[in-house]
């Protein structure tokens, strides 16, 4: 238990260090732009510029600004006001978008896992057969195609040709199905491959032969003995998968007009809304890092031989 606490502390320290690093890089890049963050294509009235500079404290020395921003962030968890959506603070915007993005991501991950693991197990059990080949071909296609291509095909089918689902927007669960499927499919494809390799690897192990020698039924051998080891590669892929799903959500949220953080992030990048952009980057970093931490912990639960380290 003490071991576990030490591990947790070390990892949280790493997370904070990473966040600080990302914050610092972002902050100074932001200030390096000639003309300052408020410069834009259109000529702004000098008076308005002055007022804006005062509001964002841009007249102060960079070091002062850095400490002030960092202090606000650490002590009050405050990202400051948005540069472009002047009536909102970054916190308000993120708080609004986060639940939607999380719901979308969680459902997509669930779909990816369910679909991927099932396909992978079936494929491994039917090794070399028609089903195996068909599933693996589908998986290769799923990995190769960008999710917006998948999205356009599915929209053409399920929205335009057979109008079953709404095209875009945010509402009940029906609005979530199509985006989550589009977001989850490429990852399902990758997970299917990993599961297949993992299962084949495990099914060739000596202890599967032992399980057969014990007279166990085939289902018990597969689900009781093989699956757990076969899923280890999938477990270690979950970290990258979460990062990938968050990345993919930028596209999916845009396609389906879902007002989540992905949409805000892209908008902020296009509008040069620096504070919002930085808030999003930090939020994403925190999400990805903490998911990686969770995955590492879950890995030790899955494999008793692995000890926590790092």
């Amino acid at each position, binding site marked *: 238990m003490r071991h576990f606490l030490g591990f947790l502390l070390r990892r949280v320290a790493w997370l904070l260090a990473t966040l600080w690093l990302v914050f610092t890089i972002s902050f100074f890049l932001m200030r390096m732009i000639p003309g300052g963050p408020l410069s834009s294509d259109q000529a702004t009235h000098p008076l308005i510029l002055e007022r804006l500079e005062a509001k964002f404290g841009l007249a102060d020395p960079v070091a002062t600004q850095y400490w002030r921003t960092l202090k606000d962030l650490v002590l009050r968890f405050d990202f400051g006001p948005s540069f472009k959506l002047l009536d909102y603070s970054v916190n308000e915007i993120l708080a609004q978008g986060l639940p939607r993005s999380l719901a979308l991501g969680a459902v997509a991950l669930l779909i990816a896992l369910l679909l991927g693991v099932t396909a992978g197990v079936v494929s491994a059990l039917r090794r070399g057969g028609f089903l195996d080949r068909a599933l693996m071909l589908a998986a290769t296609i799923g990995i190769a195609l960008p999710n917006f291509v998948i999205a356009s095909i599915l929209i053409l089918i399920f929205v335009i040709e057979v109008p079953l689902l709404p095209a875009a927007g945010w509402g009940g669960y029906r609005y979530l199905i199509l985006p989550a499927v589009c977001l989850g499919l490429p990852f399902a494809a990758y997970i299917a491959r990993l599961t297949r390799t993992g299962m084949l690897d495990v099914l060739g192990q*000596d*202890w599967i*032969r*032992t399980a057969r020698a014990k007279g166990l*039924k085939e289902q018990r051998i597969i689900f009781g*003995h093989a699956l757990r080891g076969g899923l280890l590669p999938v477990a270690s892929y979950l970290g990258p998968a979460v990062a990938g799903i968050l990345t993919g959500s930028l596209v999916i949220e845009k396609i389906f007009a879902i007002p989540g953080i992905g949409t805000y992030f892209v908008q902020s990048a296009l509008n040069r809304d620096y504070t919002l952009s930085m808030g999003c980057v930090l939020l994403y970093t925190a999400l990805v890092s903490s998911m990686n931490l969770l995955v590492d912990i879950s890995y030790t639960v899955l494999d008793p031989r692995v000890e926590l380290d790092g």
Partner: protein
Amino acid sequence: MSETLLRVKNLHVRFEGQDAVVHAVRGVDFEVARGETLGIVGESGSGKSVTQMAVMGLLGPNAVVTAEGLDFDGHDLLTTSASAQRRLRGRRIAMIFQDPMTSLNPFLTLGTQIAEVLRLHRGLRGRALRRATIEALAEVQIPRPELRVEQYPHEFSGGMRQRAMIAMMIAGRPDLLIADEPTTALDVTVQAQILELLRELQRERSMSIILITHDLGVVAGFAERVAVMYAGRIVEASATEALFDAPAHPYTRGLLASIPRLDRDVESLRAIPGAPPDLSALLRECPFRPRCAFAVKRCAEEEPGLLDRALRPGTEHRAACWREVHEVAALEAAAAAAAPREEPLR
């Protein structure tokens, strides 16, 4: 001996790969009586493990098994359905494997892995199941079994793991235990302990054991009868003592000469020159001929079957060699006298 438990007659196993067919077992006959111990000796690739895997029904889909007879206690193993055969495994016939590290599931506690057998074959549930699991570990003399049931294989030492493996496999109270090189991966001292444990368990339960090994030394003190396998066939079968007294097949003689013994010098140890034949082609000659110092013309023309080579009438001692035992022994002695050997320093 008394009642026959397992009878194997003219067993063939071939593996069909994409490019080649390998005839791994080429006509093997043997019997095991109830309570008896049979040792099967051979180098790797001789077909000794494949033979037993065929008995267990554990060979993969690329293996083709044929036989004139494969009877276990009234069950014809060739014609029984897969599920009936499965019900025999673990309950009537069990098998322990060479490497207890890789043969135990690393993701499950030993308690879970043993309880699985108890539940399936003895129908135990709940508290009785747990008690029986702990008892099973205690029976193979694992100390503090109530703690050990909660542990994973990697938390056990090699010898303890093999004990746990044995506990797991005898938990279904099988009539026949096939032990495939059970001590090969272990230290010498631990080897002796494991063999001792197997012997005790056998006495208590009057279980038959087939001990597969490449080490004639292991068989010597353990099995009542021995079969030596080479290139997919049994080349010599006999009571253990008779085999050690008067080995009839040149291959067996070679094996015996390669065992280190306390009463002989290390210098006298000899390895058998050459390598076993390629089993992807069908053989006509004696498979040992290329490595044999006593080969005659006939050896290249015809593969010998098991011929009676018993020294005393009424005993069973057969070998697949055209030469008589005394011929081979005399030739060997002459060769040893002729070769100038360096006198070892003392």
